[in-house]
Each structure stands twice: as C-alpha cells, then as structure tokens.
C-alpha cells in the first residue's frame, strides 16, 4: 500500500511554525549579536529545513532505512567538501 498519510492539521501546524521561524529570523537579524548572528541564523534555517524534511517530505514516516542513510550521507559529503576546503583557507593564516 501507499506511504503513511499525514493528517492535514500536522501540515498546517508545521506551516505555522515555519512562518513564525521566518519572522523570528528576520527580526533577530536586526539585532546586533556580533559573532553569534551567523550561528543563530543558521540554526533557525536548519530547524526550518528539518521541519520541511521530516514532515513535508515525509522522512519522519518513511519506510525504507536506506532513504535515511542516503539523506545523511548526502549532508555528510557536503560537510566533507565544506570542512576540508575551509581547512585549507583557515590554515593559510597559521604560521
């Protein structure tokens, strides 16, 4: 049979949360948080992304474990690209 059917109210609740988080991140960007600004913005963005992935994309209810493995692997590989490359740039300044 088909995949899990999510109740409409779950989708609406997620939507409301996403809208609120968008407002929060917009508002927070006006405040001077110095070095924490980037981290806060990225944490909020990641929370929103996770909500979309888990609920709108159905990953919370997905039946195949390999799907989860694939998603985690993709982000991990992105991490390899970003981290190892930045290692070079950051360490250029070390002497």
């Amino acid at each position, binding site marked *: 049979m088909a995949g899990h059917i999510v109740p409409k109210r779950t989708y609406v609740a997620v939507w409301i949360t996403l809208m609120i988080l968008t407002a929060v991140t917009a508002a927070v960007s006006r405040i001077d948080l110095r070095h924490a600004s980037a981290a806060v913005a990225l944490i909020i963005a990641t929370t929103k992304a996770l909500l979309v992935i888990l609920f709108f994309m159905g990953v919370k209810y997905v039946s195949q474990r390999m799907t989860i493995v694939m998603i985690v*692997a993709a982000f991990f590989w992105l991490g390899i*690209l970003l981290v190892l490359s930045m290692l070079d740039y950051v*360490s250029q300044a070390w002497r």
Partner: protein
Amino acid sequence: MATAAVQTAERENYLNTEYGIKSWLLTTDHKRIALLYLIAITFFFFIGGFFALLIRLELLTPAGDLVQADTYNKLFTMHGQVMIFFFLIPAVPAVLGNFLIPIMIGAKDLAFPRINLLSWYLLMVGGTLMMYTILTGGVDTGWTFYTPLSTAFLNTHVVAAALAIFVAGFSSILTGLNFIVTIHRMRAPGMTWSRLPLFVWANYATSIIQILGTPVLAISLVLVALDRAFRFGFFDPQRGGDPLLFQHLFWFYSHPAVYIMILPGMGVVSEVVTCFSRKRIFGYKFMALALIAIAVLGFLVWAHHMFVAGISLYAGLAFSLLSYFVAVPSAIKVFNWTATMYKGSISYDTPMLYAFGFVGLFTMGGVTGLFLAALGIDVHVTDTYFVVAHFHYIMVGGMVIAYLAGLHFWWPKISGRMYPEGWGNLAALIIFVGFNLTFFPQFVLGYLGMPRRYWQYKPEFQVLNVLSTAGATILAVGYLMPMIYFLWSMRYGKPAPDNPWAAAGLEWTTPSPPPTFNFDETPVVTWEAYNYDQIKEVPVER
C-alpha cells in the same frame, strides 16, 4: 553440443527479438543499451587514441616540429578529456555493468530502464558537443581547465568543451543512480548482499562516487562558464576571485573520478581471477569492504593534486596523510587476488592473461602514487612525466586491461559467439609489451626532469621518448586486434554454450545470448558467491 549450437541460433534472444534502427534507438532493454554504449565508447577510444598518436609522434624529436605549441596544447587536452569522460568513465559500468548487473542479481532489468536510455542519449549529446569542439578548433586548457587561464586568457572553445563534459557528467550520474536503486531493490530472493558477485559490489561503490562527486564537477564547470561568458570573478584574481577555489572544486570530483574509473575494473578482475583459478575469492568480506573503503576514502584526498599550487602547509600534511590511507584497501585487494590464485587450478585463457597484467601493472601504478603522496617527492616530480606514467599505469595498465579482460570473459554471453583464443592470447601479449615500452620510460623521464605538457624537450631525453613512441605503436596494434576479431566472431565465431568457462554467477545460467527478460522464472538463490567447490561443469575445450 551440436544441438545446443543449433538451438542458440534459432532461440529468441535480446539480439534477434526485434530488428530495425528504431528498436535499438528506442530500446529500454539494458542489454541493448549496453551495446549502444559499446559502440559509442569504442568510437571515442579511437578519437582519444588518435590524439595520443599525434602526441607521441611530436615527441619523437626534441624540437617542436610536427605541430605548433598551441596545437600541442590542444592535443593533450582533448586526449585527456575524450579518454576520461567519454571512454574510461563509462567503459565498464555502462557497457559491462549495464549488461550484467540485472542478470547477476536475478532481475529482469534495471530499476529505471528509460532513464538508462536517457543516460546513453546524454553521453551522445555530450559526445557530439565534444566532437563539435574538436572539429571547430579544439580547446587547449589541459583537461583540468585551470583558472584563470581557462576563464580569462584563452580564446578557444572552453565553454563548449565544458558543456560537453557537463552533459556527459549527467549521463554518469544517472547510471550511478540507476545502479544504486537496482542493487538495493531488485535482488532476487536469496540474493543477499553477502552473496553478490564482487563485480556488483564494485559497480555499487562506483555508483556512490558518481552520484556524490560528479555534481561538484558540474557546478565547477558552470562557474567557469559564468566567469567566461559574463566576466564574473569566481576564480579570477583580477576580479577578486581565487584560482585555488576552482582547483578545490574541480579535484573534489576529479580525484574520486579516478576511482570511478578503476573500481569497476577491480570488479572484473575478481570475477576473472576466481573463474580461472577455479577457487572462491580469498577474503570476500574484506574485498567488498575494501571497495566501499576506497570509494569513501577517495573523497578525502583531493588536494594532493594541489601540493605546489598554494595550499597551506597544514592542508598539505593532512591530505598527504589521508592519501597514504587510501592505498591500504587497494593493497588488500591485490593481496587477496594473489591469495586467490595461490594453490588454484590456473588456466591461461585470454581474460586471465589480462587479469595477471592488471594485478602487476595496477600495483606499479598504485605504489608510484604513494611516491607522489609524499610531499617531498611530489615537489620534485609534480608536473613531470613521472605523474603521467603513474596515472597511465593505473588507467591503461589497470583499467583498459581490466576492460579488455571483461570484454573477453563475457563476450560469449553478450554475443553468443566465442572469440578466437589464439589471437586473444597474442593480442594480450602485444598489449602488455607495448604498454610497458610506452610508459615505463616515462617514469625515468619524469624523474630526470622532463616536464609534462611540453611539446619540446632537452635532447638528452630523446632516446627514452623514442622508446615510448615505439611502444605506443605496438600498443595501437594490440588494441586493433580485438576490435577486428570481435567483429569477425559475430559472424564466424564458434557459437557459444551457456557457460563456456564453467563459471559461477547467475549470468552463466542464462542462454548465450540471453533472452530479453533474462529469466523465464525469477531465480531463488541458495548458494554463496564463487561456489567453485560445488560447480560440476568443466570449461569447454578451446
């Protein structure tokens, strides 16, 4: 066996089930698509080989007297681009993998047959763009497209070449996607992961690299195109950009790409070595895990191509150390192939001759890679012929030879015909001799200081260069021979039985050639891979 031969000729199979160009160009049968790929990559091999011949002709003499310097730059650029993107990367996966993987796992086709056909068309589109680039003046950036040379200083068809490779890249991505889903979801009952032939494991590991690495190449090429077309400054120091960023993005794919090229060949070698030693593979689990380890670790070493480009010393140290790690699983595989042969009942059929060649030549190429991973040595030999020899030992001595091993091994299955064994042996020998004569002198040349990508050189290097060119002509003869006798065999070769080698594997339980849907009934697997201790058949008399 006479009745079997008659039955083979009359029995409906994937080749004779439908005739006409439309039935081929619109096919979704993975076996027909494999043959479409075979024709395409053979054509591109000729093109790439033609450029190689011109390069070696120029290098017969120290002076630059055959072609102009700019032309020479085009020759080595297009030799590399065509060979890598239009021959080596598709070769084993798209020809042998496409043909065999569904049959080896007991399925009727790949998971997405129409996407499989799309993959072939994408390679054709990319190849056409590449031919257009070649015929309208070519490109001379080096296959590596380094910036800002490629973005700000050249007037050749950089964007066209980049687009050709971009499109071919998506062909590769879709093939990898298809294989991963197929191997996960379409295995027959009883075909567990630990019973899969290593050829399947090898293509699986390759597919992981294809889907995670190739997109980064795609975006690098797009950014080069933007820099050129709109005068953006992603990689141009004069516009605020960093050339090293291009190299990070480019090599993030292009290093794992070499594992895309070699892993399927390793899969072929495992199949051939077991069959012609009449033995199970030594250390199946380690062989499978080594394939995955190579695929994963291969993503962590890319900046070893950038040791002298301006990366930080600390990055250099990290990438050098990681490069040593990636050699370990490859070494494990070489030891295990050797251990498989030990006390085996060896026969010297053509596929096995190629397999022997692979094990030796890949080892040489691999250990010279370790030399290059050492920072100190790399500073001395980077951008010399030492590097050229290193990667040709792996790509030609390893990969091309493995591809020929696979073509010969599965030719009876694919075509329903046997190739002439005597000619096969001779060609293998000629290729082995020609290969070593071509590329061993290049190790010496590189160590002595001859730079790569130069169209003239100091007179004291001439003897070695002449030897290398002599080897290249011998190699060319060796390559022509299989092309001729494979074609000959399609008409005049002895009809092949279902299992001429008495080999293990589901593909050998189907007729030669197989019917369109591979199996009349889905097989149920109850035996382990390489069960040579249980197989009662004997190889056919040759």
